[in-house]
């Protein structure tokens, strides 16, 4: 048996071991890597940022997944919530799956830890878990009146009495819905909230689901999309570079600029945030892990992708050489 034939018959447990090492080592020893921001991510960022400081505009985050897909979706949720809290954007959360309810509470708690003055019912509101049987009545009902369709929040308070509802009545005001899913749940929001009421809909999906959503992105039915851990890493970077940016001229963040994002990179493993353009900002504050977890995860994903490509190449070389040898014999 030749070397290449042996390679063809390798025990799959060796492959599993290589996968394990390729994923664990970059997570334990993180390194800086650049993040290339794609258009669907920047479009979503710009849409959310356009609501900054407006009393009559709000967004709704719909959690349609369970803990199994947290590795990809949770960093997106935390990043978007952080963006809302940084830029004073009214944000609501809802879920129609009992498994998503604790995730939703957890994401809000993680994101708000660094913002002392945030108040539930004033700056954000968690509608909580609603049974899936009520999905359609709630989604359609919010087209007329949000406070009637949802009625109470997770703490049992009447929605209509909450301060956050000032200026918010229906999809004209609650104008953006971002659905986080590992399934095709976002299509329901497109069908009912987008088509019928003209609400803007965006998706935060696992990488395997992303390809299904491209037709809706191109048709404009999705205003933006975060795809998998890469989308989350891109959004983390955008929040760092714009929403969480602080200097004397821009104490509350700055506006999105394609030029700035092209020339800027944010090292995740140092305390200094560097700008490769004309300006360079030094900071003593190290970015907390929760705000850079997607970018650290992308290191592991980079190595894993390279490993899979190498596996495919070795597998194919072995296959063709073995075939050639067999033909010669």
């Amino acid at each position, binding site marked *: 048996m030749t070397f290449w034939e042996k390679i063809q018959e390798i025990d799959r447990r060796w492959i599993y071991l290589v996968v394990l090492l390729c994923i664990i080592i970059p997570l334990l020893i993180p390194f800086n890597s650049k993040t290339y921001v794609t258009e669907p991510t920047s479009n979503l960022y710009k849409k959310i940022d356009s609501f900054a400081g407006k009393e009559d505009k709000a967004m709704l985050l719909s959690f349609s997944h369970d803990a199994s897909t947290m590795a990809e979706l949770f960093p997106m949720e935390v990043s978007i919530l952080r963006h809302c809290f940084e830029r004073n954007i009214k944000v609501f959360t809802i879920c129609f799956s009992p498994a998503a309810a604790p995730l939703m509470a957890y994401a809000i708690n993680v994101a708000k830890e660094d913002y002392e003055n945030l108040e539930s019912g004033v700056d954000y509101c968690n509608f909580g878990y609603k*049974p899936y049987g009520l999905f*359609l*009545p709630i989604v359609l009902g919010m087209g007329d009146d949000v406070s009637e369709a949802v009625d109470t929040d997770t703490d049992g308070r009447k929605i209509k009495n909450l301060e956050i509802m000032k200026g918010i009545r229906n999809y004209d005001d609650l104008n953006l819905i971002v659905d986080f899913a590992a399934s095709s749940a976002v299509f329901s929001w497109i069908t009912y909230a987008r088509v019928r009421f003209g609400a803007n809909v965006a998706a935060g999906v696992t990488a395997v689901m992303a*390809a299904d959503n491209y037709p809706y992105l191109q048709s404009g039915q999705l205003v933006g999309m975060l795809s998998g851990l890469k989308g989350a890493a891109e959004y983390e970077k955008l929040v760092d570079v714009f929403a969480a940016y602080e200097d004397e001229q821009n104490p509350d963040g700055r506006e999105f600029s394609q030029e700035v994002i092209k020339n800027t990179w944010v090292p995740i493993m140092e305390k200094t945030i560097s700008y490769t353009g004309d300006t360079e900002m030094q900071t003593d504050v190290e970015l907390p892990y929760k705000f850079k977890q997607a970018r650290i995860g992308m290191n592991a994903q*980079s190595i894993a992708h390279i*490993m*899979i490509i190498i596996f495919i190449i070795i597998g194919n070389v072995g296959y063709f050489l073995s075939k050639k040898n067999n033909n010669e014999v």
Partner: protein
Amino acid sequence: MKRQIPLIIVITLGFIFVAHTFIPSKTSVDFYDWWVSWSKAISPFAVVLGILSLFMVHGTKIQRKAPNWQYSLVTLAALVFTAFAGFAWGTSEGTPFMWMFKNVQMPMSATMFSLLAFYIASAAYKAFRAKSPQATLLLLAAFIVMLGQVPLGAAISKWIPETSQWILNVPNLAAKRGIATGVGLGSTATALKILLGIERTYLGSD
């Protein structure tokens, strides 16, 4: 009668909701509001039915000491204890329910999902072969998209993420559109068949 009454309900309500969608009027809105209140009342019964069904299936397994009955015991114990923790102390941060979610549910679910990485790597090595021109094309597209998805791709060349995006935006999109059109036409045909009473398999066999 056993088949005719459900059939009449489905056909009548089906046409009413079609009318509600395409002919907005006060009557249709009032009917819709009435239906919403009913659907809110029906939902909790589904939960009760689900819990009863779970207890019956796993209870029988435990009683008969069927193979792997111990797992059924764990399932029921987890259900009872989680529900008790939720009712007794609530589900907010710092409660036993949230502790269990963070320390049991989250890691276990993530572990199950992460197994995918091992299977994909193994399948890529053992089965992804350039045996034909189509398979070779698929391989090349997979290489570019995989590299385009990670920072290393952009570090090698800016063309890699751009080509990756093109593959997703053009050939992938064309295929997805074709599938979506087929599914849409199929769904419309099935809906019409149900509305007109031609498709009756949902009523069961007897």
